[in-house]
């Protein structure tokens, strides 16, 4: 598998404005992004899946994703699945108990803030599992992460909105097909000095398959297409 930058987990919160649980999702996601796992996580605004471009919609195909929803409508999880890819984990904050004890969507009570902390820790545990990291539960940190001891105070979350995952749209068997991360894969193979010939084809396809499901019937034509495109890429960047 090529190393296309360090693997990170995507956190997508519904941020629902009508119920306190929506604010819990937002604050819990921010706590993970800013404090608990700042170097292991990224986020994107949910509406970008509809309002953004193909690169934004590739988000959950590129990153294993934790969707955090306030209620059983599960807007974040379902929208992510519809527009991008099925989240690896779906968390719903509403637990059937009286939500008023959490406060309002605008101002959470102490109980609401405790729920934020609980949900944030739950998200962080899923992040560690998805990345294969061991947790230091007392410190709330991931062990084995190079920056895990780094002080993250003062760090502010940033979104991946608009930056997009690089994609390439090619014609495969007479139709347009979008390949997530293909420009990154080509760049890395080129940098590694891998020749655009048959000796590289299998490895190239292995990398492409990580981010792109390929139907069995398309396998052969796709392999030819990808190698041809890689050859053209190498000639362009020669």
């Amino acid at each position, binding site marked *: 598998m090529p190393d296309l930058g360090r693997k990170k987990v995507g956190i997508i*919160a*519904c*941020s*629902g*404005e*009508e119920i306190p649980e*929506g604010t819990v999702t*937002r*604050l819990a*996601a*921010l*706590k993970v992004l*800013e404090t608990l796992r700042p170097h292991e996580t990224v*986020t*994107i*605004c*949910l*509406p*970008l*899946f*509809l*309002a*953004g471009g193909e690169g934004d919609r590739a988000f959950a195909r590129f990153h294993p994703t934790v969707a955090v929803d306030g209620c059983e*409508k599960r*807007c*974040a999880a*379902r*929208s992510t699945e*519809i527009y991008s890819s099925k989240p690896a984990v779906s968390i719903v904050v509403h637990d059937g108990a009286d939500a008023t004890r959490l406060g309002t*969507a*605008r101002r959470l009570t102490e109980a609401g803030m405790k729920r934020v902390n609980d949900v944030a820790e739950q998200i962080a545990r899923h992040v560690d599992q998805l990345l294969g990291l061991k947790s230091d539960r007392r410190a709330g940190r991931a062990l084995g992460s190079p920056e895990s001891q780094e002080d993250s105070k003062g760090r*502010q*979350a*940033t*979104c*991946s*909105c*608009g930056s997009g995952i690089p994609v390439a749209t090619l014609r495969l068997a007479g139709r347009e097909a979008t390949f997530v991360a293909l420009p990154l894969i080509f760049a890395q193979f080129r940098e590694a000095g891998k020749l655009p010939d048959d000796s590289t084809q299998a490895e190239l396809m292995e990398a492409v398959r990580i981010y792109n499901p390929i139907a069995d019937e398309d396998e052969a034509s796709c392999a030819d297409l990808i190698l041809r495109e890689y050859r053209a890429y190498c000639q362009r960047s020669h």
Partner: protein
Amino acid sequence: MKGKVAIVPCSGIGKSYGSVAREGAFEVTHDLCREKTRLVPLALLVLGDDEARSALAETQAITIDGCRLACAAKVVAESGGTVAHKLRVFDVFRRHRNLKPSGIAELDENGKKLARILADEIKELVEGMQGGTGGA
């Protein structure tokens, strides 16, 4: 125009401007124009929730976006809603450059002041749309 004016903030999670949009929407719908406005969550529109789409169909919307990608305005239009006013937090900030907001989970004082100014501007727009005075 029928029904309450729909207020749709982006609630963007990666920038302070998104939090200003969210707080400004709360200020309008909870305090300044409670009887004349209704907050419609963007996440429900993204999912295509019938109730949220119906709420848009019956009225006009004011969208509040925290960045140039204008998710709220685009999603409301995509959902069949009528956008009467597309607001951008950055435009409000440009008129009040001394109020550079900071923080996302917790807005700083500048952010809160900017949200209040944004809410006042929305209140005026709502009053203009309904041809009367606002108020709770």
